[in-house]
């Protein structure tokens, strides 16, 4: 059952990712990106990360994507004829070869490593949100605060950048 859901989420997210890159109209690309984000959040559910699922749906699909669509609607979009890089054919073949090579390496690798301190049974006992919260506000408190300051800086920067510039007044001619 998990395998069926994994196959569905993986295939749809890959197809949506390719459509995001390949579609011509930017609004269609945004909607394909929405499909990608929702299916990636489905993958998070399969990995027992319900909190990240909620964050992905709320922050990515709810806030970031709406911001993209808002800017798309705000600007009068003209799809220019030359919408690809002029020498994109030279990128395609090395990218395809590189991806096949990386995939063959990945499917062969065992990925063994040191186990952490949060086995699935212990996480499922109190829920994923509890485990994330305990970890975040004990060991990762400094990073949490840094992210808060970063977001404040990003908000101020966005406001300052997008502000309508004042017309320049010549101060000498008073």
């Amino acid at each position, binding site marked *: 059952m998990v395998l069926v859901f994994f196959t569905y989420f993986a295939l749809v997210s890959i197809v949506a*990712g390719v459509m995001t*890159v390949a579609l011509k109209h930017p609004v269609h690309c*945004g909607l394909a*990106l929405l499909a990608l984000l929702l299916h990636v959040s489905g993958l998070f559910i399969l990995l027992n990360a319900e909190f990240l699922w909620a*964050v992905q749906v709320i922050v990515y699909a709810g806030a970031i994507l709406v911001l*993209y669509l808002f800017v798309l609607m705000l*600007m009068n979009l003209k799809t220019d004829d030359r919408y690809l890089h002029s020498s994109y054919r030279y990128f395609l073949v090395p990218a395809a070869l590189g991806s096949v090579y990386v995939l063959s390496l990945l499917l062969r690798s065992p990925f063994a490593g040191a*186990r952490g301190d949060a086995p699935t049974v212990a996480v499922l006992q109190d829920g994923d949100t509890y485990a994330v919260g305990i*970890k975040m506000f004990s060991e990762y408190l400094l990073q949490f605060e840094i992210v808060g300051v970063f977001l404040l800086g990003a908000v101020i920067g966005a406001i300052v950048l997008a502000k309508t510039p004042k017309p320049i007044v010549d101060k000498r001619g008073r």
Partner: protein
Amino acid sequence: MVPLSAYVAVSAVLFITGLLGVLIRRNFIIVLMSVEIMLNAANINLVAFSYYLESMAGQLVALFIIAIAAGEAAIGLAIIIVVFRGKISTNVDEMNLLKW
């Protein structure tokens, strides 16, 4: 049981798709969307390793990545609005004021 390498393979394919989008697309907004695809691929990787190696650290880093993606989207879109106000184009080839 889905093997870990399946998740990593999905993540790799998505990452390469996003990288290709950044390289070949010329619309600034779609370039930013491709960056979001790459960040999502990294998130899948982090959460998959967090699940299979039984550690919470991956999920926390994925959370911080989502926060940083939100900041990046806000700043990027503000830059698009500024550029679009000056010259009516979102083609990244025509934004070459800082190029030397």
